């Protein structure tokens, strides 16, 4: 009796194994069928254009006539172009200021919000609404808030400061950075918050037993545990902030002079105002190469400071 039951069970297992192994063969085919949309994306909208842009960057192309081979002319021109120098300089300033400032402020806010505090939903909304409304409307709003007779100067006046020419040559880039920080805080705060809440409590308990105080816990538990998130936010933050566009397009158009001309804006102007498609592609590629190098450096350096449990 027992034997019969065993054979029966064995047969069932074999049938099962057959089904599963047969499905493994089909699985590869199914996988590629289901991936067709993404493969189309890769071909037409991502990898394909990346290659096409490289080819275009070695041509002169104005959309009307067929592309004319140009060798390295576009790149050579870019190196001598004052606008390009200004755009690279401004973008570098923007990235170098925006990323650390936003990350630090957002971390402070996240740590404060991680405590038991009343009205947490309202704080969350206050920091997040700037993120969700990051369109033209808020750019116009900031232009008015920071205008000469705007509310920012009025409030500064109330506490005894002189009015500031926020959109003048000296300050305009700073104002653009400030807008960026204001709009970026909410997202980073959310990411920090999720990282903070992911730190296991037993680590803090162990630190307490070792006699660590508030600072000791922060320094030896919280900070190391946050480093993977810090790397993630830094990489995505740098990639994202290289593309600053809406604020400079709407408010300053790159001015006054070249004070707020950023790379993304310059590429737009060269490509879609003057129709120098080849030149714009070359500029985009230079931007791509820089982003790529910066990302690789961060990826390589992580072993010196990122802590994985």
């Amino acid at each position: 009796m027992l034997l019969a039951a065993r054979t029966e069970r064995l047969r069932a297992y074999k049938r099962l194994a057959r089904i599963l192994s047969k499905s493994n063969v089909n699985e590869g085919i199914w996988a590629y069928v289901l991936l067709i949309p993404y493969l189309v994306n890769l071909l037409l909208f991502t990898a394909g254009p990346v290659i096409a842009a490289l080819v275009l960057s070695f041509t002169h192309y104005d959309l009307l006539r067929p592309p004319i081979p140009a060798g390295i002319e576009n790149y050579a021109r870019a190196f001598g172009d004052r606008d390009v120098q200004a755009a690279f300089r401004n973008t570098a300033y923007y990235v170098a200021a925006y990323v650390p400032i936003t990350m630090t402020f957002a971390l402070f806010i996240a740590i404060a919000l991680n405590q038991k505090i009343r009205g947490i939903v309202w704080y969350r909304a206050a920091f997040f609404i700037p993120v969700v409304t990051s369109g033209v409307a808020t750019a116009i709003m900031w232009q008015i808030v920071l205008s000469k007779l705007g509310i920012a100067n009025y409030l500064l006046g109330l506490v005894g400061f002189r009015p500031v020419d926020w959109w003048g040559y000296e300050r305009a880039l700073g104002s653009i950075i400030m807008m960026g920080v204001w709009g970026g805080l909410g997202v980073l705060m959310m990411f920090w918050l999720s990282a903070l809440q992911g730190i296991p409590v037993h680590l803090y308990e162990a630190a307490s037993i070792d006699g660590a105080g508030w600072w000791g816990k922060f320094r030896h538990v919280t900070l190391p545990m946050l480093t993977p998130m810090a790397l993630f936010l830094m990489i995505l933050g740098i990639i994202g902030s290289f593309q600053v566009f809406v604020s400079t397009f709407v408010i300053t158009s790159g001015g006054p002079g070249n004070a707020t001309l950023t790379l993304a804006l310059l590429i737009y102007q060269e490509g879609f105002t003057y129709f120098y498609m080849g030149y714009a592609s070359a500029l985009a590629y230079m931007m791509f190469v820089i982003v790529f190098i910066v990302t690789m450096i961060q990826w390589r350096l992580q072993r010196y400071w990122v802590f994985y449990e």
Partner: protein
Amino acid sequence: MASTGYQPAPRPIQPLPASTISTDPTAAARIKRVAATLGLLIAAFVSSVPFYYMLNLALQEKGGYGLFDWPPRMVPEWPLQLHNFPDALSQSPFGRYFLNSTIIAVLSVVGTVLSSSVAGYVFARMRFPGRDVLFIVMLATLMVPPQVTLIPQFILFKSLGWYDSWYPLWVPHWTGTAFAIFLMRQYFKTLPSELVDAAKIDGANPLMIFWKIFMPLAKPVLATVAILVFLGSWNDLLGPVIYLQSNDNYTVQVGLAFFRGQYTMDIVSLMSASVVAVIPPIVIFMLTQRYFVRGIVLTGLKG
């Protein structure tokens, strides 16, 4: 949902670290807490005061207030000019822009959610040759600045005759986007793999497994992706500026950007239009904010 009888185990929510819950009523703890609250209040004030100012200007009487009045008015005069908002919408062509933006955003959201969830499922749950290479290629595309692909895409769409139409703005979404696929994949990875084996034994094909079992369990990440795509689409300026030419096709963002000049003397109308333009993102955020954090899974990302 009920057909599977399986409810996703909520992701374990870690209790707050002991150090952050101030239960000891010592003076130091109290000072720390007061300082934190004070800092938060100041930050929240700075964060929201520009919106207050925008709302305040939008509620002023039309023509009764200009940019060059000093001191700036900090509160709207009574009675509030609430009709400014419907006025902004009915003021042609702004209502039209509003409708256009909505259509484009909805099409983009539906497309991304459908296509990215399938791809995310494939990367998370299926074994096939080339999976890891393809996945790394996908992650690498996150590094490509949109400016690089912009021009070839523009040439492609122009040659398809899609210039001055909405197609370039929403059709690509129907093929998925790398970031959405990545989020989906991370989420599907957290669901138990026994689900797949059980369904296979029942003879279900991968598409059925995905659609009947995994999709209903993925609500948080679907919501997260939907919000992100909606916001991205609604706030997009570069795409519409490049592809749209005729006034009738403009989105809210282009409309505001290009017609800002016309309104400069009528700051109240400009501000009420701006307020109306930010209402959809705010409403969407309020409705879905509880999904926001839950849908983002970064674990298993080690280098």
